[in-house]
């Protein structure tokens, strides 16, 4: 154990080290399951992301479902991965959380060993490799796909990357959504997104998009006014990763709810 830690210091990848040191800690072991798992395990649903002036906004609802059962009302699906990046997960919740944890350590491990952070492209590619490693499990029902967002100092703005079960990354312009409610969220984003809008306005856009997703998708949770459970929202700018406090999000949610009280379908976009 001791010697293993001090020898073979060739790679700065945490995942590669764990694979040789303690492979049972890694997600996506290639054991064949007796039968594919599907609806029995909790699934995470909708994540939205949109670029804003000087950064990017990412938000996720709080519901996890097992088939038609709501298994959790306050799940966290949006994670800080390092100072200038974050990810949201859709699909098998357990695999997604494990993947996010591993990826956080992967980025930090590289940064500490090398004394520099990976480039945004490097971070996106690294995540693609990890998703691809999960492909055998995905084929058996443990599907997980992330949405990765980062602030790019060279572009002085935010970037968004999506993935499929085979990896990726696919860079998305302006905005994107993943998960079962994403069809509806994307429609809302198309109509409400304004290029170069302030982070505040972009957060409002994201909360509207999540509201529309919850409106039409039973697996996506809307804002729970009774229990005061709000979406998780984070803004990433040059100043770093900032997760909005519950009080901050409550303000945006209230604005959205007030709007919808008068216009149940939300703001209308001008035709011309």
């Amino acid at each position, binding site marked *: 154990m001791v010697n293993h830690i001090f020898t073979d210091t060739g790679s700065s990848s945490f995942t590669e*080290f764990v694979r040789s040191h303690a492979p049972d800690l890694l997600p996506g072991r290639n054991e064949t399951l007796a039968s594919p798992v599907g609806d029995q395990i909790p699934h995470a649903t909708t994540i939205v992301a949109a670029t804003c002036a000087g950064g990017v906004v990412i938000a996720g609802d709080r519901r996890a479902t097992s088939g038609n059962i709501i298994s959790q009302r306050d799940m966290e699906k949006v994670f800080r991965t390092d100072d200038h990046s974050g990810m949201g997960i859709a699909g098998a919740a357990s695999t997604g959380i494990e993947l996010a944890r591993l990826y956080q350590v992967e980025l930090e*491990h590289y940064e*500490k060993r090398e004394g520099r952070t990976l480039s945004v492209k490097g971070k996106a590619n690294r995540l693609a490799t990890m998703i691809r490693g999960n492909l055998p499990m995905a084929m058996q029902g443990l599907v997980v796909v992330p949405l990765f967002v980062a602030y790019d100092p060279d572009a002085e703005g935010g970037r968004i990357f999506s993935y499929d079960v085979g990896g990726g990354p696919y860079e998305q312009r302006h905005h994107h959504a993943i998960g079962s409610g994403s069809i509806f969220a994307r429609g809302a984003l198309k109509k409400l997104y304004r290029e170069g809008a302030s982070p505040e306005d972009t957060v409002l856009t994201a909360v509207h998009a999540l509201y529309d997703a919850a409106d039409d998708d039973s697996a996506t949770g809307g804002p729970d006014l009774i229990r005061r459970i709000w979406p998780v929202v984070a803004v990433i700018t040059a100043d770093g990763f900032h997760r909005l406090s519950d009080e901050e999000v409550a303000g945006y949610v209230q604005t959205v709810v007030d709007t919808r009280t008068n216009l149940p379908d939300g703001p209308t976009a001008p035709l011309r």
Partner: protein
Amino acid sequence: MPFGYVSPEQQMRDKADYARKGIARGRSVVVLQYEDGILFVAPNPSRALHKISEIYDKIGFAAVGRYNEFEALRLGGIRYADINGYTYARDDVTARGLANLYAQNLGQIFTESLKPFEVEIVVAEVGDTADEDHIYRLTFDGSVFDEAGLVAMGGQADAVAGRLKERYRDGLPLAEALDAALFALTEPGGERPPAGQLEVAVLDRNRPHRKFLRLNGPRLERLLAETPSAAPAPETPETGASQEARTAPEGDIDTGSGG
């Protein structure tokens, strides 16, 4: 050429002398507590080859001696911390565990290898309060010393530690702590190294997530400008250090955890 029998005592003594000489050739590094945590200062003209490093959320590392040897220890320490934090939880990674790992590794190398590691290292952990801070110093033979308040290692460690104790008090503000460190690292009458020749970092207990922060560039320039001038205005020296910061024990080899 053949040579006769060399007793184990003599072998160990020779190894220890060899290591001590190697370490004494390098410049000193000082680590001390300040108001918000722990400060690391090393004269180091290189911007790429670090003597001071982050290991984990609350844990920092400083070393003197042969670069390739302490770099291997640093990388191993990061691996140890990351895999333990990933296996259990982030709060389960401690400086004490890391110090034990280093002690085992250094002790094994000292007894079994022909050439001992020519390094001395500090593993420091910042707590929620100053009382919960830990500073461990490890010598080339695997001995561990639990230091209080301040530590100096490397060339002229005794003289540097002596000067540091003159200026050190518990709970110094950052600028004054840096001033004390620079006073200690500068020969009397010598020129203080400019910002470009210094490697400075802190473990700041008030930071979120990762407490380690490198101070360089304009931030370090500003901080150096804030330090009380080099004019000696010594307070009544309250030595917060309960132990002498010595390099490895002289004379007979002490491979236990002395100190």
